[in-house]
């Protein structure tokens, strides 16, 4: 998915516009983030509600930290040009989403995960020691939200059967932005107005790459959590049978329907299901033990 535009031929105009340096400097790590398993699955509609909720929690802590630092530094000459709280700030929208998912007590229910904490700490660190680097974090998140992020909204809405009225997805809805394209252009022009020398720009690009890595770390953490949620039934994504390697018998829904129709495959299917379950195994063991015991008793 192309989120950046770039030219194939070098032009006589200034190649040191921050927006262009950032785009070029983060291209590689951006591709890496896009190809992350969690992200790819998400785009395909394979996102479990529990993980989506945890993802929203991670976003909440991240944006709360970032927007807190931006607010503190809003008059700083390097942040004032890109200060767009009405248009961009997300932490309130995220708070509403978390309330929708976790109830009115959401604040006491959710917590900041290790990977998110790592990210948040960095944000506070730069906010306090070198505020200009906040530009890198803002760029990484907001530009993404206004690009591919819009696609994620639709995918999530469908995959998680969220209401058409937008609850749970307010993060993705930028009320104050009529045209994401025009806004991104404005944002780029503001970034390019920052008075920075080559060294400072290079530092910013590196910080943006760091920001991507923090995001990837959060995705990987979510992926790990996802593995422990294996038994949960996954909501249907796109091609429901797409990841069955073509063997429809692996689909639990198909099996359930076969059962309903009394197919003979049902008994075997059921047996296999039971045997995969640890309790099933214990039960079988007990049954065999009982039979063995009875047989022994009878024979003795």
């Amino acid at each position: 998915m192309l989120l950046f535009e770039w030219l194939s031929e070098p032009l006589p105009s200034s190649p040191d516009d921050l927006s262009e340096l950032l785009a070029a400097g983060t291209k590689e790590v951006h591709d890496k983030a896009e190809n992350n398993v969690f992200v790819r699955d998400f785009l395909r509609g394979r996102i479990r509600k529990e993980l989506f909720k945890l993802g929203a929690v991670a976003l909440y802590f991240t944006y709360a930290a970032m927007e807190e630092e931006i607010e503190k530094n809003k008059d700083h000459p390097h942040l004032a040009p890109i200060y767009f709280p009405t248009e961009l700030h997300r932490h309130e929208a995220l708070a509403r989403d978390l309330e929708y998912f976790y109830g009115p007590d959401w604040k006491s229910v959710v917590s900041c995960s290790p990977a998110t904490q790592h990210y948040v700490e960095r944000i506070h660190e730069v906010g306090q020691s070198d505020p200009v680097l906040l530009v890198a974090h803002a760029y990484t998140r907001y530009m993404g939200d206004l690009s591919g992020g819009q696609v994620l909204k639709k995918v999530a809405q469908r995959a998680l059967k969220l209401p058409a009225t937008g609850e749970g997805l307010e993060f993705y809805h930028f009320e104050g932005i009529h045209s994401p394209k025009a806004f991104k252009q404005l944002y780029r022009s503001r970034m390019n107005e920052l008075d920075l020398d080559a060294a400072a720009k290079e530092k910013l690009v590196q910080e943006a790459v760091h920001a991507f890595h923090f995001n990837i770390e959060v995705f990987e953490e979510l992926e790990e959590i996802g593995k422990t949620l294996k038994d949960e039934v996954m909501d249907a994504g796109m091609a429901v049978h797409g990841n069955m390697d073509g063997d429809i018998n692996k689909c639990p829904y198909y099996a359930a329907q076969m059962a309903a129709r009394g197919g003979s495959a049902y008994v075997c299917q059921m047996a296999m299901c039971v045997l995969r379950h640890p309790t099933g195994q214990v039960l079988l063991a007990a049954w065999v033990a009982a039979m063995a015991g009875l047989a022994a008793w009878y024979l003795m």
Partner: protein
Amino acid sequence: MADAQSEAPAQQELLEVEEPLLSNLDIFLFSLIAGLLIYWVTFRKKPEPIPEFKKLDAPAPPSRETSFMEKMKKTGRNIVVFYGSQTGTAEEFANRLSKDAQRYGMKGMAADPEEYDMAELSRLSEIDNSLAIFCMATYGEGDPTDNAQDFYDWLQEGEADLDGLNFAVFGLGNKTYEHYNAMGKYVDKRLEELGAKRVFDLGMGDDDANLEEDFVSWREQFWPAICEHFGVEATGEESSIRQYELKVEEDMNMNKVYTGEIGRIKSFENQKPPFDAKNPFLAPVTVNRKLNKGGDRHLMHLELDISGSKIRYESGDHVAVYPTNDTAIVSKLGDILGVDLDIVISLNNLDEESNKKHPFPCPTSYRTALTHYLDITHPPRTNVLYELAQYASDPKDQENMRKMASSSPEGKALYQSFVLDPCRNILAILEDIPSLKPPADHLCELLPRLQARYYSIASSSKVHPNSIHICCVVVEYETSTGRTNRGVATNWLKSKLPTDNGHKASVPMYVRKSQFRLPFKATNPVIMVGPGTGIAPFVGFIQERGWLKEQGKEVGETVLYYGCRHKSEDYLYEEELAEFQKSGVLTQLNVAFSRDQAQKVYVQHLLKNNKEEIWKQVHSNSAHIYICGDARNMARDVQATFHEMAEELGGLTHTQAVDYVKKLMTKGRYSQDVWS
């Protein structure tokens, strides 16, 4: 299985070895079994409920049938709608289209190309009156969606002979991406190349604007065309396909009746911030003066008072206003429809599942609906004519109205000559087709909603924090039928005089933030190109630069290129601009008077005259360029002038020059606020 198997032999071994201790062993085995049973009973997990899984209406189990031909033949279907969908929208459209088929006496089914053998398309003609519709979304860089990848590869191989296949394509795309609707376009072109027959033009939906609307418009023209192609009578003739049901409200509590509010009832009486699209602010009009000194047009400057509303704006933003229709037209409609406009009615959606309960706020009166909520001035779309045709008692009229909705060349030409060229609105059509007598409620269901109008704000909030200024031209013209058509909002605004018989005129409005902004640094030069009413946002920009100067800030070059017809007639803000130039805020003023001499002189000519200086500002001094005004010709011509500049003075090829300007746009240094 492994655990159990390893346990059993262990038990047997235990038995053989411990024979003398048989009785103890009995007890041992018994307690072991008992223990296991107790474990099973107490620690067994309850069968996990399958969360959030609604019971499906027992559809036919997904058989491994990969033949859509078989399926269609078995179930008597002649139409198949394939979808290339990533987020489900194309799939939804495909489902809706397949359901539509019923209304026309046909049977359709939606199908995922990933699940079927698409090579069967070459055989679809085995079914009579068959048709393959494709709803194809474009993903990323002009790529197919995941589920359409195989189909795309198959099309590229190009080994199929699709002679005899009837098809139509609707593409789902987004104009902000470079390869707009690439997939839709490709499928439409490729199928034809492979020999298939296109029975309806490619439809293209733009998700950046209104995808749903694009789809509905295409679909409304599509079905009549299909019916005509197959020589099938649309069965919707006798029974009209109403979406809403009329309810006449008797003894209604007038407090519950809408009288023109956009959102909450009584929101015009009890105004509560925050003010937005659903809750507009009634801003009093404090100034309404004519801007031009002569000529036959009426250009005006209005000032809206926003004190106490907590509304904030920035120069470059847009003000949205909710206009109302001309009461004279509404009354005439009431007469010709033969209905009492003041009875209170509700139009309730027959589909109870739908989120949209009513087409406009209900309950309300016909008068309110036609004045505040419905568009009665734009030429009606073909689907409206098609639905109304049944109410024409003259069969020739009925035929013509249906014809205009078809995609046949004669039909299109008739619509063009009868509706579009003479700009006939619904009243004109009712007057000119006397046999047409539709019921008022059905007409109200069909007419589109009256939209808010947007104007570029012509003031700076730094200088005028409590006032929003508007600069616009009143739309009024004669049609070929001898009628005078008037623009809804501009005429409505014209009538908003500060005190109207002691009653303050007010305008329901809100501010829509735009991204048309002065540079952050006041020292950055700005080049503004805004002929005609395009000057509006620049009045705000110049006021702001002036304010910054007063604050002691260093302000860069502020250059304006303006154009009008005659210096003595429609030179807008002439005095104000002269003042700004005198005080040094406006560092350069270039005005083109197009009709003051034999040859036409426009802003782009003036730009060309100053090309060296402009190029220097743009290329070396980080100047920001702003274009405001007419989209169709002016914006295009100005852009071409910048291409030429880049080629000539930047030593670039034409392609490079085009890219250069495109890049300026991406970087926010070439911004446009244009309208058509």
